[in-house]
């Protein structure tokens, strides 16, 4: 579904990604871990097409299409979803209005009919259950004045509504209390289908008890320095990153 080969990227003069290669197939869950500032969010943003990041080498294909050639909204419409590490506030625009506009763009791209506000509310109510939220959140402005944890949960609500084929969750677990962590993780698990895939960026092996990954990758200094199975996360928890990063030239 997603194939990344030797991806290099920079922001301004600063080179951040130094040759990332990664393959994600349908049905899989991949976890990405690594020290602060190693390039995890950059990878996610580059895949989503943030204009501040410049790809200097390498390729990425998504469902057979050249991902890097697509506008961010085309990537979204093709089924790529990024749950932001820092979700953005859009004052004055209600969550419901925003979600329906986004969903209708994606439905149009899939050749489905657009939903009117009434049908949308029915669907939204179903999705709210998944994140154990009441309908009040729909009338609030997008992320404006949300607590850190609420913003993260709102990302998962959006994911539930948009039903992406590839979801990249960038530290969605950070800042969540214990109950919220369970709710978010269960939500993500229930959204798993044989024909979609999930990439979770996290610092905590705790999350991986809920969302069990097929693969764990460690990024350091813009490269994947180690890949393994579920047990790699436990090993990292015990030993930290140093034993992996020491060998890597900065």
């Amino acid at each position, binding site marked *: 579904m997603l194939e990344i080969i030797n991806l290099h990227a920079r922001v301004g003069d600063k080179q951040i990604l130094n040759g990332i290669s990664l393959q994600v197939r349908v049905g899989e869950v991949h976890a990405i871990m690594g020290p602060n500032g190693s390039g995890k969010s950059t990878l996610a943003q580059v895949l989503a097409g943030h204009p501040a990041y410049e790809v200097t080498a390498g390729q990425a294909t998504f469902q057979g299409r050249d991902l890097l050639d697509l506008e961010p909204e085309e990537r979204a419409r093709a089924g790529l979803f990024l749950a932001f590490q820092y979700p*953005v506030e859009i004052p004055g625009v209600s969550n419901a209005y925003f979600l329906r506009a*986004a*969903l209708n763009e994606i439905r149009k791209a899939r050749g489905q009919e657009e939903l009117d506000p009434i049908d949308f509310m029915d669907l939204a109510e179903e999705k709210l259950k998944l994140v154990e939220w009441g309908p009040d959140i729909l009338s609030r402005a997008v992320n404006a004045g949300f607590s850190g944890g609420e913003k993260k949960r709102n990302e998962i609500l959006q994911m539930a509504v948009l039903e992406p084929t590839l979801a990249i969750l960038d530290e969605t677990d950070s800042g969540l209390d214990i109950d919220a962590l369970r709710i978010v993780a269960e939500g993500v698990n229930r959204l798993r289908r044989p024909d979609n895939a999930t990439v979770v960026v996290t610092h905590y092996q705790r999350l991986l008890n809920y969302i069990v990954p097929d693969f764990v990758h460690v990024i350091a200094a813009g490269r994947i320095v180690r890949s393994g199975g579920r047990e790699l996360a436990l090993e990292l928890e015990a030993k930290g990153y140093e034993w992996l990063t020491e060998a890597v030239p900065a």
Partner: protein
Amino acid sequence: MSPSPESSVESLVNREYQYGFVTDIESESLPPGLNEDVVRTISAKKQEPAWMTEWRLKAYRRWLEMKEPHHWANVSYPVIDYQKIIYYSAPRTAKPLGSLAEVDPELLRTYEKLGIPLSEQKLFAGVAVDAIFDSVSVATTFKETLRKQGIVFCSMNEAIREHPDLVQAYLGSVVPPNDNFFAALNAAVFSDGSFVYIPKGVRCPMELSTYFRINTADTGQFERTLIVADEGATVSYLEGCTAPKRDTNQLHAAVVELVALRGATIKYSTVQNWYAGDAEGKGGIYNFVTKRGKCAGDDSKISWTQVETGSAITWKYPSVILQGDRSVGEFYSVAVVNGKQQADTGTKMIHVGRDTRSTIVSKGISAGQGNNSYRGLVKVLGRASGARNYTQCDSMLIGNRCGAHTFPYIDVQNPTAAVEHEASTSKIGEDQIFYLKQRGLNTENAISMIVNGFCKEVFKELPMEFAVEAQKLLGVSLEGSVG
């Protein structure tokens, strides 16, 4: 690569001005220039009574003694030669019209093209329209329906002839002819406008609306609107405007007076989309307007809502004199400037009565090389115990070449008054746009959504029909995010 937020908003706001066409209709115009004879001729053409001619002449003589307020507002423009302006122009067919059937079909087509069909069955249900073409009112719809409730809705001209006592009692009572340079000019040469009277206790059953259109080249438009809501009456009034694209500047110096008696409510909404000039700043309307309301009675309320997107220069401060005790004044404004547009707009709230309250919400959006200034005065007189004002003034910048300025003036002479002012300036963020694009919206819709959210507190004050108009103007889909 995706376009920068600046370029896409510019293309959005810069979309070809779609109301820039000229109607090919024979019109009767006076030669350019202004003197006492021109004032008398205008008055004569309108078959006005002697008191009205005198009123105009007095204003004209005052105007001669006044100076244009060139350095007051934060705008600049070349000196206007008042002898080069045409002060009267009317479609040649314009005689007092008995019914819509008598309106020139070319004029009806013009309004259809502007999206304002004048035939009553095609109109928005529940909106009565007075259409002003150059200097004269060409049609007023739903007059009969309104007359049954004692409501007067007609051209100012007709009001001067048919309701002289009402006109004499209120004309100039809020904006006296000597109020300011442009108000004096207007008083001398105003050619038409709308007049509304809502009798005691009547709630006007439909939105009343005036649609202004400048057609003839080099014509100034000087309309005058007077709205009187008698005790306990309620009315909502809408004003819309467009003009053809021309490469010379045209002057629009209107006066609007509102009078709310005891317990009355007047809501006045404007969507202003005059031609703004081209990208180099050539042409466009100079919009120098005096709008003022008087809450004359206790417990009365006047609310101004404006969405200003057009004109080369906008200079306007819809104001409220809060004379009655417990009266309420409101001002909700969205002003958008782009290209080389300049806007200096805001409000004045003058608290005279006890326990009077005013609210000001101003949203300025600047793009291109546009320059947007908010200028607001909150004045609390000695007698106005318990007066309250809340002002919120937000600016949004799109790009690096535009400007936003805020000039709040506060003058409080009563120690029990509470005046609160909040201001913010923000830049439309690349991260906001990217976030929305990541959810499937294109850049244009993303910017629309962000700008629309920014203006929400104002848009929700607009009547439904106008909210739709405002949404179109900003290229914004408002559905669901309003109300």
